[in-house]
């Protein structure tokens, strides 16, 4: 449940409850007097009506009375009317006394109007005197007392108005409280997605509360991150240029020196040349890693034939491995394609492959397979080497991480290969994991595949 909904519903519920309770209290304290007021009102109306009825009876006889009483039916919630003498004889009207209980006697014995309530109707009775003093009983059958219709409608309307107003106010309150949070959330996501120019300040500039402070703090933070990333980008660009310029000069100077040397120093010159190549390679890898980690560069993507990429890399790696009495062999490679950056994907495969060739024992082979699992291409590269201590397996993909002291720099690897492979695979929404097989290390790369358009490796296009 969102914060907005929580605030909105809770406040609304609270307001509605308060309003409800107030109404209930009012209702319960008012309903008694109300019923009594009604009874008084009915009693007074009965007095007037009964006296009129008696007068008409005395002047015009039973026929006139009947006419008058009939006219009363249906008026003011009256179902029927009856005029009775002391013996219980109905002089006029249509009222049925069977349901009236003891009302008949109570009516005769009291000077006040009497009532008899049934679930669906109310009987009322009051005495009336003829001009000769004879007491008669005037009885009414009324529809059950209800609050008049206009009254209940108005109540409903009032409750509705109050609840709706409360709802509106709560909505406004909740959105006032949560909208800056939502804006902050959106800005945070934008920054996470790489857009560092996002600021929330301008949108919340008319507020002066804790959230506005939070927003300005957020902006300061974003500002700082942006300038840090910017300077990092500039730094990597500068490193690329500044470190390579001396290297470039050194290589030319070395060749000049080679030309002048009498042959004695040639091996050393070659050595210096090799080391400067390594340094240069290291600079390249650091740059690649930094680009991948900061996401500072957009890598172009295209439709890649994973099978042909992998096969060409295996051929190269095998060629190099055979020179050292090792080999790289294909177990099974399915024809799969993906959308990605060719250079990065190649580099990921190549780095893992080279690492495997480096550590597999003399005379053994590195096995490579690629299979489809669901929507993923699963590439497994397995060596027959010493493996990696179980507790260090997660550190394998850290930059410059070397397993134990035993694994020295025997090959001149930079210690960045697997770290770059991991970042490259991740930038393609894939994953890379390593596990010990018992007689070596198996590295598994998973990459999302695109649907194969054609099984043949060569697709004619006019790209």
């Amino acid at each position, binding site marked *: 449940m969102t914060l907005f909904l929580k605030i909105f519903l809770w406040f609304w519920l609270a307001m509605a409850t308060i309003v409800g309770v107030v109404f209930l209290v009012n209702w319960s304290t008012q309903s008694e007097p109300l019923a009594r007021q009604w009874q008084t009102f009915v009693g007074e109306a009965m007095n007037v009506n009964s006296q009129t009825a008696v007068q008409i009876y005395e002047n015009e006889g039973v026929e006139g009375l009947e006419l008058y009483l009939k006219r009363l039916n249906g008026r003011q919630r009256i179902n029927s009317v009856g005029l009775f003498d002391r013996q219980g004889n109905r002089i006029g009207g249509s009222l049925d006394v069977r349901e009236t209980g003891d009302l008949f006697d109570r009516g005769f014995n009291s000077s006040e109007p009497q009532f008899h309530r049934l679930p669906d109707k109310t009987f009322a009775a009051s005495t009336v005197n003829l001009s000769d003093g004879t007491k008669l009983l005037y009885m009414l059958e009324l529809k059950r007392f209800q609050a008049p219709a206009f009254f209940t409608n108005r109540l409903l309307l009032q409750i509705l108005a109050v609840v709706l107003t409360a709802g509106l106010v709560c909505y406004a309150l909740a959105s006032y409280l949560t909208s800056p949070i939502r804006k902050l959330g959106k800005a945070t996501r934008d920054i996470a997605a790489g857009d560092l120019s996002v600021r929330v300040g301008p949108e919340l500039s008319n507020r002066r509360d804790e959230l506005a402070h939070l927003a300005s703090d957020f902006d300061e933070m974003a500002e700082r991150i942006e300038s840090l990333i910017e300077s990092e980008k500039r730094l990597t660009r500068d490193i690329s240029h500044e470190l390579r310029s001396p290297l470039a*000069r050194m*290589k*030319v*100077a070395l*060749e000049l020196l080679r030309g002048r040397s009498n042959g004695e120093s040639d091996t050393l010159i070659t050595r210096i040349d090799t080391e400067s190549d390594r340094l240069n390679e290291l600079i390249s890898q650091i740059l*690649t890693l930094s680009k991948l980690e900061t996401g500072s560069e957009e890598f172009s993507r295209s439709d890649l034939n994973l099978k042909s990429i992998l096969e060409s890399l295996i051929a190269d790696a095998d060629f190099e491995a055979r020179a050292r009495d090792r080999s790289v062999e294909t177990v099974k490679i399915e024809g799969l394609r993906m959308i990605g950056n060719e250079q990065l994907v190649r580099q990921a495969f190549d780095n893992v492959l080279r690492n495997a060739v480096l550590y597999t024992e003399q005379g053994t082979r590195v096995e490579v397979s690629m299979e489809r699992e669901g929507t993923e291409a699963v590439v497994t590269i397995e060596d027959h080497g010493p493996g990696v201590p179980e507790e260090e397996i997660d550190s394998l993909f850290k930059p410059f991480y070397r397993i134990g002291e035993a694994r020295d720099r025997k090959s001149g690897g930079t210690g960045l290969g697997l770290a770059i492979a991991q970042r490259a695979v991740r930038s393609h929404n894939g994953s890379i994991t390593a596990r010990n097989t018992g007689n070596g290390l198996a590295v598994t790369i998973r990459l999302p595949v695109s649907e194969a358009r054609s099984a043949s490796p*060569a697709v004619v296009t006019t790209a």
Partner: protein
Amino acid sequence: MGRSMEKVLIVDDDEELCELVSEYLTVEGFDVDSVNDGEEGLRHAREELHDLIILDVMMPKKNGFDVLRELRQTSTIPVVMLTARGEDMERIVGLEIGADDYLPKPFNPRELVARIRAVLRRIEKAGDDEDQAERLRSGELEMNTSARSAKMKGKDLGLTAVEYDILAELLRNAGQVVKKEDLSVRVLERELSPFDRSLDMHISNIRKKLGEHKGGKDRIKTIRSVGYIFTTEAN
């Protein structure tokens, strides 16, 4: 070389590197001049006193791309660009605006000399081919190897030396796939390496200059991960 010393102009803001490269190239038998900024480089290049220009990309004031772009408006003088290694975009942009070849920094000067010689050899071929003048033709495209001219409907295409050689190679084998590896060795005089996209860039430039068949199809088809075919009007 049977000719007089070839004149090379180095345009790079790194003065010390210029000195070292000059020294190396002089030993290799070139006549070398060097300038240290783009503006001056452009001025010297336009005088057409040199046979080839080595142009650095990263320079203050006017960078190598801008220099090349302006130079190409008036001149087809061979240009080898020096780019920062690993900056894939830089290499490709250089070829797109008409560099004949590129070399990532730091480079081995022997490699630089090899590239320079390869580029210059292409130009010299024009003279050498005269005896065995070859006329290639397909539809409205006409190439004359003695004049090193490529004309479409009688109009010169303005191809650079590399582009000319690639197109000639494709045209000789019109209708057949020419492997990238072979094209690289025969025209660029080097083995194809996995990340080398220079052929693709040259092909893309040639395509732009050639235009399409009437039906809107490219004259040069890419056969992915294999090579290219020059298609004739009929197919």
